[in-house]
C-alpha cells in the first residue's frame, strides 16, 4: 500500500468516566472500500464523529491526506475532503431537494460560481441517484429510501475524497440495499474512498475490501471479509458469549 489516505493513530475518547474509544489505530488507503463493524455501543459512531470533527478526540492523532486534523473544525475537514452521512437522515427540511444539494456545492465549490453552474452540478448528481424528478420537491414528501439517497447525494455533492457512510441502509428492503450498494460501488470506482458502517452483514461483506471490528471502544479485529467472518473475537462480540 502506498501512503494511506487516512491514518487513525491511537485515538482515545472519554465521556466523563466512560471510555468510548481506547487507543484505536488503523489506516484507510486511497480508493479503498473500508468496512467498520461492531455491536451497538461499540464506538463506531464515536470514531467517525472524531474523524469528521463532530467530536474532538482526547488522545491520539487523525491524519488525513498527510495533514493532522487535530483541532480542525468540522466544516474545514469537509473542505479538506472528508464527508459523512448520518445514521438517521438529516435533510434540511425547509428546503427543496435541489437546495439541499446546493448547500455543499455553494460553500465548498469555487467562489463566484453562477447559480446555473451550481444547479447543473446538483442535477447531475441527482440524476446518477435516480432522483432528478424530485429535485424541486420538498424533503418532507420523501420516502425512506429517497431520504437515504438524498443523504448520500448531498454528501457526494461535497466532492469528498473520503466518504463515510453511517448505516445508510438501515431499515431498507433487500432490493433497496442492493440499489444503495450499487451507487456506493459506482462512486468508489470513480476514485472515492469509502468507509462504510453497517449492521447488515451481507452488505458490508459484499462491499468491503477490508473490515475492522470495534468492541467496547477497542479494535478487536482487522482484515479482509473472509478473515473477519472467521474471527472468534468478532463472533463473541456479536453473540455476546
Amino acid at each position: 500500500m502506498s501512503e494511506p489516505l487516512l491514518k487513525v493513530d491511537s485515538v482515545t475518547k472519554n465521556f466523563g468516566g466512560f471510555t468510548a474509544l481506547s487507543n484505536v489505530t488503523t489506516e484507510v488507503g486511497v480508493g479503498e472500500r473500508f468496512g467498520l463493524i461492531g455491536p451497538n455501543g461499540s464506538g463506531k459512531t464515536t470514531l467517525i464523529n472524531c474523524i469528521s470533527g463532530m467530536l474532538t478526540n482526547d488522545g491520539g492523532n487523525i491524519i488525513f491526506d498527510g495533514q493532522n486534523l487535530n483541532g480542525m473544525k468540522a466544516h474545514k475537514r469537509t473542505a479538506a475532503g472528508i464527508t459523512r452521512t448520518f445514521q438517521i437522515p438529516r435533510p434540511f427540511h425547509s428546503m427543496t431537494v435541489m437546495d439541499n444539494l446546493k448547500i455543499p456545492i455553494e460553500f465548498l465549490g469555487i467562489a463566484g460560481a453562477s447559480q446555473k453552474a451550481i444547479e447543473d452540478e446538483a442535477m447531475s448528481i441527482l440524476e446518477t441517484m435516480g432522483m432528478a424528478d424530485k429535485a424541486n420537491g420538498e424533503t418532507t414528501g420523501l420516502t425512506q429510501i429517497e431520504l437515504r439517497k438524498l443523504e448520500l447525494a448531498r454528501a457526494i455533492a461535497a466532492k469528498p475524497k473520503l466518504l463515510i457512510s453511517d448505516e445508510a441502509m438501515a431499515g431498507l428492503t433487500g432490493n433497496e440495499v442492493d440499489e444503495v450498494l450499487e451507487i456506493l460501488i459506482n462512486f468508489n470506482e470513480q476514485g472515492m474512498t469509502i468507509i462504510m458502517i453497517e449492521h447488515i452483514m451481507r452488505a458490508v461483506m459484499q462491499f468491503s475490501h477490508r473490515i475492522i471490528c470495534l468492541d467496547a471502544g477497542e479494535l478487536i479485529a482487522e482484515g479482509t471479509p473472509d478473515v473477519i467472518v472467521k474471527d472468534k473475537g468478532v463472533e463473541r462480540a456479536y453473540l455476546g458469549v
Partner: protein
Amino acid sequence: MRYKFEIGCILVLLAAYLFTYLEVNRFLYVAGFPILQFVMIATAWNILGGYGGYINFGTAGFLGVGSYTAVALIQWLGAGIVEQVIIAGVVAGFLGLSIGYFTLRLKGVYFAIATLALAIVLETFVNNWDFVGGAAGISFLPPRKPELLGYVFIDSKGGALFGNTKEYLFFIMAVLAVFSVWIARSIEKGKLGRGLNSIKDNEEAAECMGVPTLRLKLFATTISGSLMGMAGAVFPSFLTFIDPLTAFNLEFAVNSLAMPMIGGTFTWIGPVVGAVLLGTVQQWAIVTFSSELNLLILGVLLIFFVTVAPHGIVGWFMKKNK
C-alpha cells in the same frame, strides 16, 4: 428587470419623503414612526431568528444599548441623529458579535435565556449609570436645526428639507427600515441565507456539509444586533425622553418575535407584513379601545395566528394559492 427590488426601495423612500412634504396630518408621522420601527426590529430579529433559527429573547437589550448609546453621545458630544444611529449600530453590532462568541455553545432555549439574561444585566448597568440619567431616565430637547455638510435639515420657515422634527425623524426611520429590509433580503437571497437556513434545519449536518456555522452565526448576531441598535438609537430623539424601563421593555421581546411569526419567518416579506399589521393594530387599539382590551387583542391575535396560520400570513397565502 434586475433591480426591481432596489427600485422599489427607492420609490418607497420617495413616497415617504413626499408624505412628509405634503404635511397631510402630523399624527400620521407620529403613529407611523413606531410602525416603521417595528418593521426594522422584526426584520432584524428575523435574520437570526427566522433564517438561522436562533431565538433572540433579548431584543430589548440590543434596542436599549442603541438608545443609551445615543443618549451617551448626546450627553457627551451633543451628537446629531445621524452620528447617533451609526455609532449605536457599531456598538450594538459589537455587542451582538460578543454575545455570539459568548453563547456559541448554547442552542435553542439556552440561547434564548442567555440573551434575556444579557438584557437584564445591561438594564441594571444603565440603572446605575448616572451619566445617562440612571433609573430616573433623562429628557432632552430635540435638535432645532440639524446640519450636515452645510445643509439645514429642519426649518419651519421653509427652505429646508423638513418642516419639523417629527417629519425628519419619520423619514430617517423610513430610510432605516428600508435599509434593513434590503439587507435582510440580500442575505435571504444569497449564500448566507441558505447557509443560515441549513443551520436552522440541522446545525451538525450543516457543519458537515462545509457550512462554517460559527462564522455564519456570528455574522447573523452582529448584523441583527446592529440593526436593532440602530432602531433603538432613534428612540430617545423621538420621545425626547428615555428611561431604562422604556428602553429595555419586555414588550420589545414579545413584539420582535410575534411580528415575524404572524407574518411568516421564512422570507423577508413576512416580518414586514407582520410588523405593519401588528404595529397598526396596536396603534389603532390605543386610540380606540384604550383599556386593558388592548392587551387582549394582542393575546388573541398571537394565539389565533400561531394556531390557525402556522407559517404566518405569507405562508397561508402561498398555500391557498398552490
